[in-house]
């Protein structure tokens, strides 16, 4: 029992280190920050409601891929009745900026970028001749 002081001091340091991020945030009074996304200026509605897009956009993209490539179906009727051409580069990226939207959110969420961009091009970058 002679080490009681050391044990308690060690536990106190451990708890302090573990809870450091919370203390830091309280000290700076910062709110939790969402990714700094640039939303399209010219469009308000997406092909699905924003909450669904947030949760299932990759499923939708894979569905579009299979429809266009395998089934030769090219149009998608959105929930609001609008008809879109199923194209990552011509439709999605005509509103969204890949760098300021897709990349930022994936980076924030710690989700690695899918292999789409190994082949599909960002029109903004392609126009500038970059990769």
């Amino acid at each position, binding site marked *: 029992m002679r080490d009681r002081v050391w044990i308690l001091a060690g536990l106190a340091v451990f708890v302090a280190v573990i809870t450091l991020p919370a203390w830091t945030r309280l000290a700076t009074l910062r709110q939790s920050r969402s990714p700094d996304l640039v939303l399209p200026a010219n469009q308000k509605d997406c092909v699905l409601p924003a909450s669904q897009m947030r949760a299932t956009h990759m499923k939708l993209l894979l569905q579009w*891929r299979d429809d266009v*490539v*395998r089934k*030769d179906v*090219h149009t998608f009727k959105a929930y609001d009745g609008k008809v879109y051409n199923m194209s990552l*580069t*011509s439709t999605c990226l005509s509103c969204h900026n890949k760098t300021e939207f897709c990349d930022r959110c994936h980076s924030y969420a710690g989700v690695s970028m899918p*292999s789409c961009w*190994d*082949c*599909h*091009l*960002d*029109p903004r970058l*392609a*126009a500038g*001749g970059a*990769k």
Partner: protein
Amino acid sequence: MQLSGGSLLALLGREAATALGSSPRPDGGQGQAASAARQYAMVIDSRKCRQRPGCTKCLDACHQAHNVPYIEDPGRKVDWIWEAPAQDVFSGQQSPYIQITLKNEPVPVLCNHCEYPPCVRVCPTGATWKRETDGIVMMDWHRCIGCKYCIVACPYGARSFNFLDPRPYIKHLNAEFPTRREGVVEKCNFCAERLAEGKLPACVEACPENAMIFGDITDFHSEISKLLRARDTIRRKPELGTQPNVFYIV
């Protein structure tokens, strides 16, 4: 079943011959096309083509539209449509007189979108298939694993493999069409993406001599059907039974 050395070799030989499409009409497999509603085809009038020596407009238009890389190394180059000497294109159909007529002039060659495509039969992932609606032999680069079996199976050398990352070799990127990545096979798709928009293939549109005629050969009244009835045409390596859908007027 026990196989002696000789019979095993014979069996392997038969399998290889079937895979290469050397049987006159391969049965079954994924290469069936009897149910195709339409069948797109092309007639290349090499006589008109020869009137413009050195013209590469069809090649340039295709490669520009589809982000085909320009790689000089002949072992690694990628082509969707290219020119080859007539004696190579029509090997097996040579007589001294045909050679004199053609003078080994370059002839444009591309994927033949065969009625019975050997590449489709061998693809292990379904990355290449014959579209039932219009007979185009399609490629799905999402599914290609780069095994190159289709390259071996194609008797026309119409497929190229991306040994290198193609992007640095593309002069002008067309964002509306994807590039490919290292390790996948690619070939002509009869401009399926343009057909979906009601346009003609890029090579057909670019030809200043209208030497390429494209259309549906199941439509009796289409321009290509009329042309095929009116003119004598030949196809590449007809003895293989692949039934190419690219026809040549020589």
